[in-house]
């Protein structure tokens, strides 16, 4: 691990802007002395804003990419890895079409920077089936006609797979609550819920 240099020069040339971040507040920089005092801490080297090496482990395969830090996981999957099964519906975390699994947990790929999920196991819709053998959730969506236009379907299926792993959906009401992050504008909801419940072994 490199010991990063927090140089006084860089500190001084950067404009101060009092702001609030997601997660942590950062006030105006205060005394230079503080920066110098902290200069002994170890940090990893900064990357970007240009392309940087990023390794994404998608569907069991490692992909070495050079992408800018600002590239979202969704765009990396679609535009760099040609995995277009993950859909962009809103790009703001409000529709769920881009749902993928990261280390088994469902997240919105549009709100996730690709660089943040390096070395984590990413599963997309393309990685769900075992060869020609559909994943049980895919088979259930097919059997229950759990879609119309199909655009939200990959996100619905991955969300449902994670939901069952979370073991929190015990009945119809909780399935619906926990699937509410996936919008289906065609309104195939009854069939989607039926598909999820059938895989969960819940009587419908």
């Amino acid at each position, binding site marked *: 691990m490199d010991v990063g240099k927090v140089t006084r020069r860089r500190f001084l040339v950067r404009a101060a802007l009092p702001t609030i971040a997601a997660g942590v507040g950062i006030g105006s920089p205060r005394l230079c002395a503080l920066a110098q005092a902290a200069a002994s801490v170890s940090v990893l080297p900064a990357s970007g804003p240009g392309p940087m090496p990023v390794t994404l482990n998608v569907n069991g395969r490692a992909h070495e990419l050079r992408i800018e830090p600002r590239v979202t996981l969704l765009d990396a999957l679609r535009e760099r890895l040609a995995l277009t099964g993950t859909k962009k519906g809103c790009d703001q975390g409000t529709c769920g079409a881009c749902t993928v699994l990261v280390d088994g947990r469902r997240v919105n790929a549009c709100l996730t920077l690709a660089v943040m999920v390096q070395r984590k196991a990413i599963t997309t819709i393309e990685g769900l089936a075992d060869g020609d053998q559909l994943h049980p959730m895919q088979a259930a969506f097919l059997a229950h006609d759990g879609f119309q236009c199909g655009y939200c379907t990959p996100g619905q299926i991955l969300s449902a797979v994670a939901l069952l792993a979370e073991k929190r959906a015990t009945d119809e009401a909780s399935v619906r609550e926990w699937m509410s992050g996936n919008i289906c504008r*065609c309104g195939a909801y009854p069939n989607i819920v039926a598909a999820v419940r059938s895989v969960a072994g819940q009587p419908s």
Partner: protein
Amino acid sequence: MSLIGRPVARHDARAKVTGAARYPADLVRSEMLHCKAIFAHRPHARIDGIDAARAIALPGVVAVLTAADVPYNRYGLIDADQEVLCSERVRYVGDRVALVVAADPQTAERAAKLVEVAYTDLPIAGDALSALEPDAPLVHEHRGTNVLLHQKIRKGDIEQAFADCDVVLSATFTTSWQEHAYLQPDAGIAYYEGETLVVETAGQWLHEDLRQIAAILALEESAVAIRYAKIGGAFGGREDLSVQALLALATWKTKRPTAIVWNREESIVGHHKRHPFHIETTWGAKRDGTVVAVRTRTIADGGAYASTSVEVLKCAAIFAQGPYRMPNVATDAIVVYTNNVPSGAFRGFGSPQAHWAAESMITRIAHALEIDPVDVRRKNLYRDGDTEATGNVLPAGVSAIAVLDRCAQESHRRFTPRAERHAHASLRRGVGIASGIKNVGYSFGFPEQSTATVELIASARIERAVVRIGAADVGQGVHLILRQIVAETLELALESVAIVSDDSAQAPNAGSASASRLTFMAGRAVHDAALAARSAWERGEPPEATVQYRPPATTPLDLETGAGTPNYCYGYAAQGVEVEVDVTTGVTRVLKIVSVHDVGRAINRQQVEGQIEGCLAQAVGYALTENFKVRDGKILTPHFSTYLLPTTLDMPTEIVPVIMELADPHGPYGARGMAEMPLVPFAPAVAAAIYDATGAWVNDLPMTPERILAAITAARERTTASAASLVGASSSPA
């Protein structure tokens, strides 16, 4: 075993669950040029100049196209009043003024910020009512008026009829815009294949896209081909051109493959919406519940361009009195240009707005006369042989009463009994019922046809069939339906029927995926073509036939009287809903829905149920949560974070789709269209249920918690006031 009615699976189902299905944005390749449209983002302004020099100087920028680059800069579904790229004036925030074409999306985006457009802002016509004022700014100056259409319908003697009524009620209703919110934002690619300019996107009507794009580029239609990728929902929202013309222009200009992908905000700002309506209506009835007179004045906000406004408003006009026989009618349906986002087609096409008023009014008439709302409806509903307000006899197969009766039965059986609905102090249950009517297919003399080619592969017997028909599968599953019909007609296995449908050069014109028409129209075309091909084969001729199906003719309506034959087929619906209103907060949930539809014949029952359930999700949004807001022409809800689509949790657990099969005389196997009908009676059924729960009527859509709370408060104040006056009148001095 017959294939008709069976829930066989879609042939694209596997692709949809594995992620293999390709939607327009999935076709984009990095070596294509990428387009970025520059939106006006101002509601009304004169364009004083466009300086693209800095943008063009940016490495990677190939072109910045403006109005001067468009050969014929006029388009529109009905009235070509819209420019692909605006030349002198912008009329709404989503108008496009320039198109950047660059090597990659990032460069296109950066360049778009460097294009300098000088505007002079102009006063705006901000809403339909103010746009009607004499001194309102004109949206299209050369027209001399903002009125796009004023359709009148006159029947009987309305004044005398009201004078003879036992009860006369008036009310004013409003509705807001509704956003289609198809989950796949507008996108596509264009490229040359030999000499042919190919535009590959998502739409609702291949051959209409073709007609408009060829006209814009001043090309022969044979020089252009439209292809549809998988279509991620449409609902009427892809009827008008959005990105298609931009793509075609970019590739035609640069001779290189181009791509465009709109983000959600661009999609919401850049395409039309359901019309907001302002409806003033008066209903008069006899003591026995016979409604005899309806006067309606409807003013709709058509937005900046014509789109399909005139057709939507004519539909709203003929349904102003709902599905009821009415001897005296005075309807004025007016649609007005404003500097708002254009209004156009959306599932239901004017009928949901008309029913919002009509179905609310008939329930109020019933309450005023203390008659069951079902009985009042039954007394007034259309019957076979009845005459519409337009003077024609209804197309045969009027099933409104049978549908209502079935709905009343099912609702009664399933809904919470009256005595138990108010058991909880703050969570009040209520039930409501409403009827609906909606045309199937094009109306008012608009040319209506569907053409199909069926080619047989046969030796000793017919082994396989290939169906060619340019019908858009927007997710409703029409390709499966058409294959089922052909398989049934030719007694083939479903797997033996292939369909070619997504290329305007490979498949004939089916007409649009709209107006609930494809099962009926395209279904009939493939059915008839299949029969003709078999006859040809039986005669020893080449086993192929192309058939154009035309339904019974319709006619334009007389502008002053409304006289005419508006439609060749109607669908009839009735819905019962049970709601739970939290009277403390106004938050309302729909608990149960019974949705009854005469579909003539269900070709695929699973898909019909899917259409009912899916349409109901949009109906729930329309009634309760989808609150599209515009201020001074600027859209305040261009994201799903503020425009709230129903989630699965907003849908009732008990949705009962009831399919009745009272055959239509013309539809294939008796089928008639149904995909829009569940949106038609739903909102007024919910309003009636809210009234049942709370004693308060809501007149404005969507019925948000604060509107419901305000209505409850107003109703209580009225009750208190009338109780007080009653006490004052009857109490004797102590």
